[in-house]
């Protein structure tokens, strides 16, 4: 079964996916809300930027992140000037990379969910003197619940499978930045197919169960909505 090193990598992977998902839900909510309701001329530009990680090879993201996090780069330079430690090869660095990498998987379902609510429930609440925050938390958020479930699970599952970005900025440090996909790659490259099988099977089952959860629960939500 899994070796101690593989188990550590599994824990790191789950932690990374969990932290990334929480950050993405927090950042993604206002962004998706704005995208769902805005008629601003810059909206298509933001839409396109949010969708970019869907089509870009992760190595492109990783490459730019590596340059940006380095001492000459925008983020790395900033960190250095405020006296903070650089972010490459750290768990925090991986979280930043994963947030960008999984952004569309969280923002797009939320955006669709918010758009699906339409204006009428919110306008009705407004006539009952509900303030904007009240309207958001009592009307929009509960109605967008299936969207949140899809967003959370897709964001989590997509981060589980992250490889290219981590390969570029992770540095493969056990217990800190060595995630499961990298561990599998190492096993395959060093011809240890038995271990590669064990770890791959864990990831396969985990991903399947997560996706199954989304589809089963979403079906139930839809039935309730009808």
């Amino acid at each position, binding site marked *: 079964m899994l070796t101690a090193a593989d188990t550590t990598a599994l824990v790191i992977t789950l932690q990374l996916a969990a932290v990334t998902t929480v950050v993405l839900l927090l950042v993604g909510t206002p962004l998706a809300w704005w995208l769902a309701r805005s008629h601003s001329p810059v909206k298509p530009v933001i839409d396109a930027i949010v969708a970019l990680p869907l089509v870009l090879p992760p190595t492109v993201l990783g490459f730019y992140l*590596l340059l940006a996090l380095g001492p000459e780069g925008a983020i790395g330079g900033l960190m250095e000037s405020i006296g903070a430690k*650089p972010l*490459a*090869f750290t768990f925090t660095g991986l979280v930043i990379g994963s947030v960008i990498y999984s952004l569309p998987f969280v923002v797009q379902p939320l955006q669709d969910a918010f758009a699906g609510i339409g204006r009428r429930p919110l306008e009705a609440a407004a006539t009952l003197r509900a303030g904007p925050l009240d309207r958001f938390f009592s009307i929009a958020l509960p109605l967008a619940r299936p969207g949140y479930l899809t967003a959370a699970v897709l964001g989590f599952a997509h981060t589980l499978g992250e490889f290219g970005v981590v390969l570029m900025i992770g*540095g493969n*440090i056990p217990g800190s930045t060595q995630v499961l996909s990298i561990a599998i*790659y190492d096993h395959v*490259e*060093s*011809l240890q197919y038995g271990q590669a099988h064990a770890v791959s099977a864990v990831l396969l089952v985990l991903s399947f169960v997560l996706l199954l959860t989304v589809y089963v629960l979403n079906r139930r939500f839809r039935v309730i909505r009808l």
Partner: protein
Amino acid sequence: MRRIVLQLLLYSIAATLSGPLYATELRVAVAANFAETLTEIAARFEADTGQPVTIIRGSTGKLYAQIINGAPFDIFLAADSRRPELLENEGYAITGSRFTYAAGRLVLWSPDPDLVDVDGKVLASNDFRFLAIANPRLAPYGEAARQTLEKLGVWESLRGRIVQGENIGQAYQFVASGNASLGLIARSQPLSSSLAPAGSFWEVPASMHEPIMQQGVLLEDTQHARAFLDFMRAQPAVIVAHGYDLPGQNTHNAYSR
């Protein structure tokens, strides 16, 4: 007019289809660290013989997997001796063709001109945050780096500060981009890079690790392939100029300071 276009089209299709059958293309698969050196040797070979050489670069492990799955290469120049030996034993390489074409050497490099001292004592200090090496499980240069650090007695204490590239190229790039302060890289890399080697170096003595024997094998027994290997053996100066040792000889002049 239309007929001419059609004829041209058919002709080009026919040319494309028949191309690989008649061309005497020579394909050399090479471990990424030796690719620059090989490019120079191949250019000389082409100028000498008119025989074009196609270079396929990759990691030794990936190229090995491609070869056992039928990749059409004539020659394989690996970064280690293990994979060529496996290929020979498994019958994918021509028996008796295996030879050591270069011995790899390590240097400790930092772009910072003051960080690395001539004896590499910096490795035992806290003057840096990350040291980049190649993955010891995957790359022969990584294994040599691990042996060196173990011999220096710092392997355990550096745990958590060692970042691993999947190959020596990535380890080099971690240092070149400034994300790691220093790295144990191949001596050939700064010499082959388009960037002039700047900063500080410690040339790791060959006695610090098992020799990094880079071996090659013949995969297809053709006249062109044999001619290329003979040509390569007759070019030791190019190999040494790129920072490699020749098997059985140590050189120390690559980074005279």
